[in-house]
């Protein structure tokens, strides 16, 4: 009999994700995969997994889970969510042990949109086309090709507690990046008028509620095309910014269609892709063009940051009752304490 993580409430959209499917886009298979790869690496590092181990991506409102037959260690990274064990609030961004039968409830996101929940040892799941990532539209990955549902049971690969200290993400590494989203112009910037391109860079765009893992839909000043709105369909990447006939940008994300027929004015640089995962409906974004060599250097820096992810983690002593939760609450977020009383 397998030891399972049991889903009591699924949350808004909770899916199993790893780094996604590579090499099958030519057959119409969306890459999918985790939206925020830094969060995946961080959550896995906290619980001692390989950085690319599949974990649960949670969105805006999280699930309630339990494991009735074993004790497990878990950690959340990415967006800041309210977390509680059997109703007692605990801190996000650090490891906790969940005793057999205890309930882990993940509430709503207080900042950002998506977090990754990693469990020590990971899940037991057979890859399809090289990945266990869930892609709902093509019914691939996860348990049965879609988000988790109440009553689902995810088999754990190595239940039990690891023999390693409890860790937390140092506060300096929890902050969400600010400022404009950086892009490289192209591939079809020539499909827009000079005025259209100027509008794109000079305006604030608001993230709409229709955004999901396929695309981040924006609303704001209309970006004017130079001529025809359609192109002969070609391939898309994570970060392609397409502008359909209504002039409102859509940033294509992990679950995007493999090909598209709208011109793409610009492409978000690799280093800013994890930020896209955290944009909230109603939030404003602005775009800034950078040089290609800058984008490549930033991609290098991000790779290095993930490789050295352990450097962003701090050991915590959790001996008796109030520990780092308490300290953090007292010292850093004093104004919020009353919410926990």
């Amino acid at each position, binding site marked *: 009999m397998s030891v399972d993580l049991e889903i009591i409430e699924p949350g808004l959209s909770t899916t199993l994700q790893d780094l996604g499917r*590579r*090499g*099958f*886009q*030519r*057959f*119409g*298979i969306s890459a999918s995969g985790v939206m925020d790869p830094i969060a995946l690496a961080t959550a896995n590092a906290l619980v001692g997994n390989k950085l690319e181990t599949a974990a649960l991506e949670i969105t805006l409102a999280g699930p309630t889970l339990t494991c009735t037959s074993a004790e497990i260690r878990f950690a959340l990274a990415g967006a800041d969510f309210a977390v509680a064990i059997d109703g007692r609030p605990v801190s996000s961004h650090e490891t906790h042990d969940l005793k057999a039968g205890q309930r882990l409830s993940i509430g709503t996101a207080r900042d950002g949109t998506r977090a990754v929940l990693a469990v020590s040892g990971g899940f037991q799941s057979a890859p*399809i*086309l090289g990945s266990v990532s869930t892609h709902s*539209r*093509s*019914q*691939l990955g996860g348990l049965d090709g879609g988000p988790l549902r109440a009553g689902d049971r995810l088999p754990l690969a190595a239940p039990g507690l690891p023999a390693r200290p409890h860790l937390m993400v140092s506060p300096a590494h929890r902050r969400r990046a600010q400022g404009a989203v950086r*892009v*490289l*112009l*192209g*591939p*079809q910037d020539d499909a827009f008028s000079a005025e259209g391109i100027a509008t794109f860079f000079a305006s604030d765009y608001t993230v709409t509620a229709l955004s999901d893992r396929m695309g981040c839909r924006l609303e704001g000043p209309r970006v004017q095309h130079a001529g025809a709105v359609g192109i*002969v*369909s*070609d*391939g*898309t*990447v994570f*970060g*392609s910014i397409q502008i359909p006939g209504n002039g409102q940008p859509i940033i294509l994300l992990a679950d995007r*269609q*493999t*090909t598209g027929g709208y011109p*793409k004015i610009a*492409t*978000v*640089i*690799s280093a800013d892709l994890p930020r896209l995962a955290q944009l909230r409906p109603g939030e404003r974004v602005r775009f800034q063009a950078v040089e*290609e060599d800058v*984008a*490549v250097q930033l*991609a*290098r820096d991000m*790779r290095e940051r993930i490789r050295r992810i352990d450097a962003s983690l701090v050991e915590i002593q959790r001996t008796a009752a109030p520990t780092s939760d308490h300290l953090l609450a007292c010292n850093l977020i004093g104004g919020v304490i009353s919410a926990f009383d």
Partner: protein
Amino acid sequence: MSMANDALYAVPRFRRSGDAALTVEVGDGIDADVNARVVDLDRALAERALPGIVEIVPTYRTLLVCFDPVMLSRRDIEAEIMALWPPVAPIGQVRRRWTVPVAYGGDNGMDLDWLARRLDTTTDEIVARHSAAEYRVYMIGFMPGFAYLGGLDPALHVDRRPEPRLVTPPCSVSVGGQQAAVAPPLASPSGWHMLGRTPVRSYDPRRTHEPFLFRAGDLLRFHPIAAAEFAALERAAETGAIIAEREELTV
């Protein structure tokens, strides 16, 4: 390709797609020669097996080359492509031709009657024209295993629906504008006209040795079948049988 084709570019146009991808445009429009060049360049570049190229996505007239910017620069890839240019098809290459059974009309093809009225013809005439043509697979995209086909009889060119349907049946065989298509066994939104359904599963992840049947450059023909035969073939396809007939043509 003995005659000059204005749609083909003398040299490829490179378009930046971020810091980790490059779009290589080899010609203009939807054209068999342009698409053949895409297929040839795809093969030639894949054979070079450059470390750092993550994947290549061939489409109608472009290749999307996805790469790791830490291992490889865009300039390196552009230089590599120029060195391979113009790509040529290997001598004695094998082309695949598929024959795909289709149950036309009725519940399987909800737009067949409408199309006959719209074109002021009979459903038999539409079926005859649609199944007489030889199609070229231009690309696989939009959804897993969805094949975009060129070669549709001009008499069957009809604009797409003004409002796409939110759901169309799995394995639909459809036409839209100048193009035809075969859908995988997944329901999907579509603005195309549904002529029929095929029992062929162009994509099936359970068929681990061959999850995808069609690829860019393949030839394809349709073969009308009766609804009863459709049901029997569909059951066979469910068990993993590849019921589309495949010929290998040496060119």
